[in-house]
């Protein structure tokens, strides 16, 4: 009896302590396990009720939302603003945590949610000037404009959901973090678009070029990071097929540029804190996409077809949210939005369909600045006069509001300025400019023709995109759209060099007029396609738009498939989206085999090479999950890159400072005796192309046997070697879907490489017939609740390359829904039920 009281006090005290001060990473004990409000409530919230209601102050009239059998909300409103209010509400209902996490990632306040571990990411984002840019864009907004009313309406919807949310509706992630959702501010939509700009258009070609020049000199660096892709398969059709490969001899390695090397070393690691950028450099991941459209004359049903699949980081929940917005007589639009964006980004209405790929244009420049005091500058020099630097103090707070750190970010008239290794560099970037991004998306929803759609997009700023559109009249068109800087004429107007910041003549002088944008409409070939490749053949327009373009392997493949298909159907579009064939393999594999034949003629007893060549010769150049030869080719390509670019290794290092693109390797294949083929690690021998290819193939077999065992034992299966890994936003393994089988490999239309965390984030096919029909799928589902069947309900179809028919009813009356399917009524003063 005497121990009972102390024991009880100790037990209750311990529970209370673990509930108030949980040891990280564990959640608060009792609130977590509370069966009503705790984590188990997540399971109850996983199912949407048949008849729910909610309140959104400011609605003009009731809004009905019906969820179809795929869990996609169809919003029926009487005014456009009501539709966007409801959009904010339903997105928050399904993706509240994602909304906040994305916003915090974009405005550099992640550490306020996740703690000090996120501080480096926050500092990087703010040092890039993204938060200041958002503030400036907000200040420049015409608050009386219709697009801004849309942004505010969306925010009203999100906040109405947060305000009416009960304890049991709190998403799991907040429970784990012991956090509560923040209210949604209209500026968050600007932050989100800035974040997309960072993901899609930030590049550091200048630094890559400096690193190369520091090892092999300027001339060779220019050739290895070329302004024009050595393999020409441009977006704007150039009438050539197959692709044109540049056979211009590559200049030999030159004298290292010591100044470039010093600057490159000083700048090393300047942007490595950002995972997206780090992944690009360490894995060679290119955030890419595919889109194509076929004119009616080349389709079976004589209606235009459009297909698109943006390749982004794969996450759970998915980056996209599928929705249908309907306002009778005003708006009828279906597609995907990004949580936080108050509009459909990729989709279709009753007349027009559209989709994007990233343009990869160079829209970032760096300037070497001279400052008054290197340690604590207050002024910078331009044209012999000192100008004051603008200072912005950035404060970083922990989840409980404590100050974690303070930074002072300096700005020149060009943009944010950063110190790296004793040098000061400022940056000009179109994403930081107060460009128009949101308004065009509101406008395109109403477009009735491809021409009207393109007109609406004329004002679009950043990130630059290859915008593909098709309409019911049969028009197909593509335009690289976005702000493309006009640079000073010196250095060929290039943007891949660090410019002198002390003269104003280094500054951009404007942006391209829309009439100059790479553009094609109804080409004679009957189809259009883009896959992030260089948009226009330099023989047509040699103006600098970018450099070191992504390899055009996907573009070559889709063009070959479309060229061979004069009766395209929606199903053939679907099949192409997961096509396992490889233009890259078609190009490189024969060179390996030819080199092996020649090497075996000289050394017929080389049994390893003979076996390796025999195995590679059996390959059909496909990356199906059961394919057992693709892995050998991939290992051979890796060996080839390692052996070929030995000249690019920094002294004392075995890794190239920069790895040139495979397009440059393809160019070198046309020069069998180029000095680049010689392996300097074997001074007694001068290797040629075939020597290196044969050696690579031989070594690849050794690698394959060591890593994957004997062929035929299962270890060589492509599905065993390469996987997709779709991580939960917090990278919680149990909420992620990992080691998923892959159909596709590097350079295929459904690409998979590296750690498998990038891939097609939405697949869509649209037929522009009398009644527009769409098909699509996400690598996940609509809900962010892991306990919901809609969390990953589309994943199986996505993996198998199947597309769901997208339900696009004309009105809520004809909406056919299975009995018991969820609905939601939103009204201005309603009582909220789940």
């Amino acid at each position, binding site marked *: 009896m005497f121990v009972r009281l102390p024991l009880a*006090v100790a037990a209750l005290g311990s529970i209370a302590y673990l509930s108030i001060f949980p040891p990280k990473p564990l959640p608060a004990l009792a609130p977590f396990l509370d069966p009503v409000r705790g984590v188990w409530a997540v399971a*109850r919230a996983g199912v949407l009720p048949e008849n729910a209601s909610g309140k959104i102050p400011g609605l003009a009239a009731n809004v009905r939302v019906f969820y179809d059998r795929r869990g996609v909300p169809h919003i029926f409103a009487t005014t456009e603003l009501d539709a966007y209010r409801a959009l904010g509400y339903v997105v928050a209902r399904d993706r509240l945590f994602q909304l906040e996490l994305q916003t915090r990632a974009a405005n550099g306040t992640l550490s306020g949610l996740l703690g000090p571990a996120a501080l480096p990411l926050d500092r990087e984002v703010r040092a890039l000037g993204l938060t200041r840019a958002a503030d400036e864009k907000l200040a420049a907004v015409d608050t009386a404009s219709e697009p801004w009313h849309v942004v505010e309406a969306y925010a009203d919807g999100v906040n109405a959901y947060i305000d009416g949310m009960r304890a049991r509706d709190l998403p799991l992630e907040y429970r784990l973090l012991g956090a509560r959702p923040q209210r949604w501010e209209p500026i968050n939509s600007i932050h989100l678009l800035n974040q997309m700009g960072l993901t899609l258009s930030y590049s550091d070609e200048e630094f890559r070029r400096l690193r190369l020049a520091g090892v092999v000199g300027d001339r060779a660096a220019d050739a290895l990071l070329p302004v024009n892709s050595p393999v020409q398969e441009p977006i704007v059709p150039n009438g050539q097929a197959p692709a044109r490969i540049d056979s211009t001899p590559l200049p030999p390695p030159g004298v290292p540029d010591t100044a470039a090397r010093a600057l490159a070393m000083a700048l090393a690691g300047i942007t490595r804190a950002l995972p997206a950028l780090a992944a690009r450099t360490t894995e060679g991941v290119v955030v890419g996409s595919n889109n194509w459209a076929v004119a009616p004359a080349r389709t079976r049903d004589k209606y235009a077809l459009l297909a698109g699949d943006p390749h982004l980081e794969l996450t759970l929940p998915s980056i996209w949210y599928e929705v249908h917005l309907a306002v009778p007589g005003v708006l009828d639009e279906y597609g995907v939005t990004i949580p936080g964006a108050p509009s459909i980004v990729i989709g279709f209405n009753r007349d027009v369909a559209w989709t994007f790929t990233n343009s990869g244009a160079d829209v970032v420049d760096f300037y070497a600045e001279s400052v008054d005091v290197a340690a604590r500058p207050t002024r910078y020099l331009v044209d012999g006069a000192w100008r004051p630097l603008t200072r912005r103090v950035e404060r970083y707070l922990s989840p409980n509001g404590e100050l974690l750190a303070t930074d002072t970010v300096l700005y020149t008239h060009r943009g944010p300025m950063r110190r790296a290794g004793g040098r000061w560099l400022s940056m000009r970037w179109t994403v930081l400019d107060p460009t128009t991004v949101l308004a065009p998306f509101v406008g395109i929803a109403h477009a009735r023709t491809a021409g009207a759609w393109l007109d609406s997009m004329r004002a679009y700023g950043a990130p630059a995109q290859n915008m593909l559109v098709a309409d019911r009249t049969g028009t197909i068109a593509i335009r690289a759209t976005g702000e493309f800087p006009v640079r000073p004429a010196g250095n060929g107007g290039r943007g891949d060099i660090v410019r002198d910041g002390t003269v104003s003549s280094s500054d951009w002088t404007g942006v391209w007029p829309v009439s100059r944008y790479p553009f094609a409409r109804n080409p004679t070939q009957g189809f259009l396609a883009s896959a992030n490749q260089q948009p226009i053949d330099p023989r047509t327009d040699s103006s600098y738009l970018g450099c070191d373009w992504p390899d055009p392997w996907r573009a070559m493949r889709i063009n070959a498939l479309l060229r061979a298909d004069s009766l395209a159907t929606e199903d053939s579009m679907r099949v192409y989206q997961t096509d396992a064939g490889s233009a890259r393999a078609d190009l490189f594999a024969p060179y390996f085999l030819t080199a092996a034949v020649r090497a075996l003629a000289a050394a017929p007893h080389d049994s390893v090479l003979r076996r390796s060549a025999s195995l590679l010769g059996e390959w059909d150049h496909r990356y199906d999950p059961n394919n057992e030869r693709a892995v050998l080719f991939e290992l051979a390509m890796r060996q080839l890159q390692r052996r070929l670019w030995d000249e690019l290794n920094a002294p004392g290092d075995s890794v190239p400072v920069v790895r040139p693109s495979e397009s440059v390797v393809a160019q070198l294949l046309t020069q069998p005796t180029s000095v680049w083929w010689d392996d300097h690690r074997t001074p007694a021998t001068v290797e040629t192309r075939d020597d290196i290819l044969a050696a690579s193939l031989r070594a690849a077999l050794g690698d394959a046997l060591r890593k994957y065992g004997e062929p035929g034992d299962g270890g060589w299966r492509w599905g065993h070697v390469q996987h997709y890994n779709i991580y939960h936003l917090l990278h919680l393994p*149990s909420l992620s879907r990992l080691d998923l089988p892959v159909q596709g490999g590097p350079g295929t239309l459904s690409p998979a490489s590296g750690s498998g965390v990038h891939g097609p984030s939405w697949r869509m096919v649209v037929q522009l017939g009398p009644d527009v029909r769409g098909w699509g799928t996400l690598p996940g589902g609509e809900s962010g609740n892991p306990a919901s069947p809609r969390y990953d309900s589309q994943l199986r179809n996505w993996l198998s390359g199947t597309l769901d028919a997208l339900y696009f009813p004309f009105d809520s009356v004809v909406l056919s829904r299975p009995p018991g399917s969820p609905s939601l009524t939103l009204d201005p003063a309603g009582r909220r039920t789940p």
Partner: protein
Amino acid sequence: MRSFTTYVIAAIAFAAGSWLAPWEIVPVIAALLVLLAPARFTPFRLTVAAAVAWGGIFGWTAFRAPVETSALARELAGIVHAPSWGGGGAIVLLTPLLAALLAWSGAAMALSVRERRGRRVASAQARP
């Protein structure tokens, strides 16, 4: 029969209380019941009743949930680094166990207070 009724009443009290208020209500209800009727609501009975109440709510949740609760339990076990045995069973078991511990703590503290007060009253009455 009386004992069974006691369990039922206590379990309903815990379930209703938990439905209306956060987890802190469990030790409060346990303490109140002990103070009201110590002979009937013993710490043991309240411990069992609280476990049954939270277990019942969990069971109802599992029954209504759109996904297999075992799958969710497995996912949660992974998140909180709970033992993975029984397909996430550890974290499921932890829910009624926590309720039991909360109820027992509240009941035991209330009983101790009541007994001390009783002893003090008795000793005061025993004084001449």
